[in-house]
């Protein structure tokens, strides 16, 4: 029997030896390095083809754009590689490049680089970012000046020029490696291995499934004063792992923690919580064919005033807020206050709607939390609150990838969805107008509410910022009063860092500017 035990002991010995090997290795320390954990959305490091959050975070560190945003303030673009002026009609924007700025290879940034970079995106019709250049004509005025023009007023253009997809590339280098301004562009492979920009970092290595490594751009002569000369951005899809890595000092920044996880973080972790730019809302279809009894403004009003918004907000975590309208709080025209529950108004509206106790199906994606807000408990609470108001709801969850088809095709009578901006400007929320993309998903045609259509047009065509802000406010207010959407929650964005790191500023497009992270 002793012999038998020897074999068992040998097996345990093997396991123990392997475990000891685990003890032997410790992560090397590097004080000028920083590790950022995030769930990857990364397809390319070619900024002109990039259109996903992690890609934007990487592009923002490697490249610069004509304009920028200061910290978390996305209401007004500030100077980036250039300053700008516009004509009174807001159709011609003249950009003047800052003197002396250079790319990472030391060559000067000129108007030719701007013209090439913007026209490259405009020419690559298969690029997901191509639509950003729709209707914009780029003209070189002189070596340091470029003119961007549109046929109709476009006060969103300055905000568009902050988008990392429209980053300025070293044109000579990119052209040498296959870059063109039409569909024949073949520079992506080159840009997936080397960066050709003027940002504070250069690309060291990239693996689209696991990690990106950035190192300091020694020729950078912009305004950022970077503290971390090496940045590792890792793909950690599980938020619980991000939390453990951060607490165990294996990483210094965790980007995707939910409100609950932030609340249970150990001491000594900095937390930056702020409302994101996503709006979670109820859609109430106004097409009789699709919605049946839901297809009238009174029913939408009944739902709007029947809900207890603070109770719904309990399901979201740190940084979240009640949605005051379809436009989230950080954007121009966002309303100050949201709807408050009023059961009398709800009851009167319900009676006027002709609703007679029918069961209504509420559809929602059940595998796609937005900002840590899981839609299943949210739907259950909506169901419970509407039941108190006399509306019978039947829940119909489905995976995101199957649910989205019926949402996009406008065949859902009653559903929970979300909307985030493609670029940092309130014009992103005009699709909620009657007859526009999101409006039509709710069966809301232009003919059904011409007032809202006119308000959206006024916001779109405003030629000065004061007029524009008022127009967007009016648009948002009108939607709150008569639209087929019931905005519920703006979930929080929670970025947690090691205690010695400061400078985190949330941005709805590039999440955070890595170059602004500072060691205290």
């Amino acid at each position: 029997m002793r012999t038998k035990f020897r074999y068992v002991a040998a097996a345990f010995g093997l396991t123990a030896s392997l475990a000891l090997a685990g003890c032997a290795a410790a992560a090397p320390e590097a004080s000028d390095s920083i590790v950022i954990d995030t769930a990857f959305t990364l397809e390319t490091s070619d900024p002109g083809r990039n259109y996903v959050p992690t890609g934007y975070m990487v592009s923002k560190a490697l490249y610069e754009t004509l304009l920028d945003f200061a910290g978390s303030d996305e209401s007004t673009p500030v100077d980036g590689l250039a300053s700008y002026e516009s004509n009174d009609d807001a159709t011609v924007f003249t950009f003047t490049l800052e003197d002396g700025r250079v790319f990472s290879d030391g060559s000067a940034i000129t108007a030719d680089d701007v013209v090439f970079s913007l026209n490259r995106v405009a020419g690559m019709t298969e690029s997901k970012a191509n639509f950003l250049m729709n209707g914009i004509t780029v003209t070189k005025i002189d070596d340091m000046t470029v003119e961007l023009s549109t046929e109709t007023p476009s006060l969103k253009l300055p905000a568009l020029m902050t988008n990392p997809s429209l980053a300025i590339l070293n044109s000579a280098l990119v052209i040498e490696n296959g870059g063109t301004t039409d569909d024949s562009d073949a520079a992506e492979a080159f840009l997936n291995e080397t960066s050709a920009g003027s940002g504070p970092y250069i690309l060291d290595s990239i693996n689209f499934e696991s990690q990106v490594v950035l190192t300091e751009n020694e020729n950078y002569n912009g305004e950022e004063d970077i503290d971390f000369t090496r940045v590792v951005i890792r793909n950690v899809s599980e938020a619980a792992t991000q939390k453990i890595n951060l607490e165990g000092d294996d990483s210094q920044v965790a980007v995707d923690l939910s409100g609950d996880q932030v609340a249970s973080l150990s001491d000594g972790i900095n937390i930056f919580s702020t409302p994101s730019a996503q709006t979670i809302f109820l859609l109430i279809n106004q097409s009789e064919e699709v919605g049946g009894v839901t297809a009238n403004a009174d029913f939408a009003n009944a739902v709007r005033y029947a809900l207890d918004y603070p109770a719904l907000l309990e399901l979201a975590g740190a940084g979240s807020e009640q949605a005051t309208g379809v436009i989230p709080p950080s954007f121009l025209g966002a309303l100050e206050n949201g709807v408050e529950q009023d059961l009398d108004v709800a009851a009167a509206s319900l009676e006027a709607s002709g609703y007679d106790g029918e069961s209504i199906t509420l559809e929602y994606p059940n595998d796609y939390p937005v900002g840590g807000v899981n839609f299943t408990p949210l739907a259950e609470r909506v169901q419970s609150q509407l039941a108190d108001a006399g509306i019978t709801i039947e829940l119909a969850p489905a995976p995101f990838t199957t649910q989205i088809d019926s949402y996009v095709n406008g065949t859902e009578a009653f559903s929970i969805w979300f909307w985030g901006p493609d670029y940092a400007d309130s014009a992103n929320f005009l699709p909620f107008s009657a007859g526009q993309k999101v409006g039509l998903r709710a069966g809301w045609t232009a003919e059904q509410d011409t007032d809202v259509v006119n308000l959206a047009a006024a916001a779109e065509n405003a030629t000065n910022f004061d007029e524009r802000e008022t127009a967007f406010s009016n648009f948002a207010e009108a939607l709150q009063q008569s639209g087929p959407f019931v905005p519920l929650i703006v979930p929080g964005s929670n970025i947690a860092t090691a205690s010695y790191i400061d400078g985190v500023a949330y941005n709805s497009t590039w999440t955070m500017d890595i170059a602004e992270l500072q060691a205290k």
Partner: protein
Amino acid sequence: MGNTPRATRRYSARSPLVGYLLRRLGTSVLLLFGVTVVTFALANLVPGDPIAAALGEGAASNPATVEAYIKERGLDQPLPVQYANYISGLFHGDMGTSLRTTQPVADDLAQAVPATVEIALLAIIVSLGVGVALGSLAAYRRGKISDQLVRVFSLIGLSIPTFWMALVSFNFFFLQLRIAPGSGRLSPALAPPPTVTGFYTVDSLLAGQWVTFTDALAHLMLPVFVLSLFTIGLLTRFVRTSVLEVLDADYVRAGRAKGLSGPRLLFGYVLRGASLPILTIVGLAFGTLLSGTVLVEAVFAWPGLGSYAYNSATSLDLPGVMGVGLVVGVVYLSINFAVDLLYGVLDPRVRLA
């Protein structure tokens, strides 16, 4: 027999073993073809719009972008043509382009598969060693306290949810005890070794990078530990049952009567007799480890096949899904083929069947 060399007779075209091999190979090729049909059909029948999922809201509302996207990927062709193109591409090593990563699926899989094989291989070795040892111990000491303990241990291994175990062990060994490294295949300060096999441990050894080797090995420990627990539980119970059956066999009793004991009896008689069913379960367990590590890979941020499959499926990346389906199909067929071969080697009756 005459003077004909034995080896020539054994491997001639008429030899039962060669015939058996060819039959198994033919079946595997047919099954592989079936796998491509099924994965292609399933990937193209799932509800949802992969183009909208890949392009996003803004780009998907731009008709020029959608048109260019569809044309570039040949998605405007009828399904049979797309399938024919897919098969034709496979013969040239082209598994299509991932809609999610925009990289060739073959390149993505070339990175993901070795990462998973590295943990799965180590996990099956550990599981086999521990499972056979514990299972044999439990069988030999049937009804004793050690048998009871082993059975409880194996039951725990089978019952604990892998995802939960991964999180708890990661928290305990990394965060609390600080004796295991953080997530991923390597510490962030280290660069991956030059790729030869795709196994970081092997490649770092080949490159003489000892620090990288130690670090890679350390990062393997927790995922291997978690993955092994279930397989150890499975193998332990299976080995115990198989050994118990064999222990009562006449030839084992005869061996014991001749005075054999200890390792000679265990390896020469008992385990050899129990090897066929154990081989089957090891093959299945290895296949499961290779194709079912999604949750463990998610917790340990392990960029392997499981993570790739999950990300591809949730983003409607159909070429990615088909690539994973094909790889998993090939893995199972290869394992079955290998197990069948070993059956044939271990038991001559099988190859004559």
